[in-house]
């Protein structure tokens, strides 16, 4: 399952991910990280049985955690099922089922590459 971590300025210099790994013993895969001098946004992947404990461990350290259940939202009226989103996605979120495009929300890391690649502007990022 994918968790979106919002790391605020006060704690961005702390070794948050490694301390959570040591505490929870969970296998954490960093899918995307955007960390600068003042704050950070990190998407991690963690197995479903460890998801709750990892989420709590980050929250205990002051990180705002969002479970990415609906990371990308498709407007079915706008979508023409062309497939422009398929090859642009780094994690293979979209695929054809017959001639229709379907998405696997569990793969999305909210990088946003598909949003501007969609010629119909049918995609947007969800909040969680």
């Amino acid at each position, binding site marked *: 399952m994918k968790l979106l971590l919002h790391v605020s300025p006060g704690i961005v210099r702390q070794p948050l991910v490694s301390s959570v790994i040591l505490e929870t013993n969970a296998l954490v895969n960093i899918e995307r990280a955007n960390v600068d001098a003042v704050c950070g946004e990190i998407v991690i992947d963690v197995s479903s049985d460890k998801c709750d404990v990892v989420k709590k461990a980050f929250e205990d350290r002051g990180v705002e955690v969002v479970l990415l259940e609906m990371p990308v939202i498709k407007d079915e009226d706008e979508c023409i099922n*062309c*497939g*422009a989103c*398929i*090859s642009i996605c780094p994690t293979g979120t979209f695929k054809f089922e017959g001639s229709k495009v379907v998405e696997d929300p569990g793969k999305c890391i909210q990088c946003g590459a598909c949003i501007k*690649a969609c010629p119909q*502007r049918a995609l947007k990022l969800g909040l969680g």
Partner: protein
Amino acid sequence: MQEKSLSEINERIRDGSVRVVSAEEMPDLVDELGTDGAVREVDVVTTGTFGAMCSSGVFLNMGHSDPPIKIAKAWFNEVEAYGGIAAVDLFLGATQPSLDRGDEYGGSHVIEDLVTGKEIDVKAQGAVTDCYPRLDLETSLRLEDFNQAVMINPRNAFQTYNAAINTTSRTLHTYLGHLLPRCGNVNFSGSGALNPISNDPDFEYLGVGTRIFLCGAQGYIIGSGTQHLPQGGFANLMVKGNLKDMNNDYLRAATFQDYGPSLYVGLGVPIPVLNENVAMKTAVRDRDIVTEILDYGVPRRSRPVIKTVTYEELYSGLVDIDGKEVSTSPMSSRHVARRVADALKNQILNGDFILSAPVQPLNHVGKNEPMKQTKEFPLVGDVMRKGVVTVVGDLCIHEAAKIIVGGTFDHLPVVSENNKLMGIITAWDISKAVADGNISKVSDIMTRRVFIVSPDEPLELAARKLDHHKISALPVIDKDDRVVGMITSDDLSRFFSRRRSA
């Protein structure tokens, strides 16, 4: 040889006994029945395509105002339409961006808004004459308020279209979508075996006056399209249809990021199975239709062919490029293409669509020659500065600083013993090294990833490179990686300012 006439087929459409299949159903039928059996059993094969067709637009007649105006310039929701045709006829092109929203709203969006019943703001400036005294006007119109709204598309439904890949190290934004760096994806367009022309490549039926399905309306082929090139597999159609009869399911506005607006057009042609040759041609499959993957990283008219592929390979989702599996994306929608072919099939089955006899076939030979460019076409080699001073990596920074101070270049290409480019240092690199107290060798501080140009590249491409990478100079390199010159942003400004004032 089995044959039948168009009037026999139309008689069956009228009496409800016509047998229609889509172009995707036909190959299996021909395999099973043979071409003679297929001519006996099938009357019409329906085709369809739904892709971004930039070469599209609408003629709009607004009716005369009081006092009358001869429109010189006009805007629909801030999208300019061409007014140089009589007084109140305008042509609105699909790819025209708007003044206020740029690429996100353009001519195609106005066309879609009209089809979906929305009201459009119209502004016009007049060329004042004795017969047309009005200076300007503003009004709001819906599709029903226009006397005529006729879609006329100069170049639609290409038989095949090349696929695109990108060998450069940055993402490209094109009319074939986003192309990821280092051959990260392959984008393509076309409905393959459903394409109208691929089902009648000899133009036995396609011609001037062939009645077609155009965005839900019954339209016509009015001729071979512009750049029609059947001898190269790039035949295409010029078409017209009544916008007032069109349906948003088969007409969609789109925006390609950093390219601009375009219009997705749903176009289908019924192919009457008149004889065994037609039956054989309509049995075409995706695997029989070939196209080329071109490198869009080369921004020139003739782009290198990376691979020849079939539409079956492209639609499989992965193609092999030099041993690497690369993901593919269609930019056209096969889902809607199938709905076009099915909608056309149902119209024929219901007796609502009668096939027309074309007046003359499409041209069997077309023309798509390169542009004759009569104005000068400056190349990097014409403008670059020669006699560039180069240095070797072992030189100390102090010496490099002296060379810059004593010369005319702010950039020093760093070369190997056999004069091949290894890196570049700038006056700024040296200042920084001095400020850091890092007085060492040139090779310690040089930039190793150097952007370069070749002498035969157009000057405009060098300008784009400088702008894109936010740098001020490019070494000019021959085919052996040797530095033959340098081109800087100063050289470009000087060249273009002289040319403008000349």
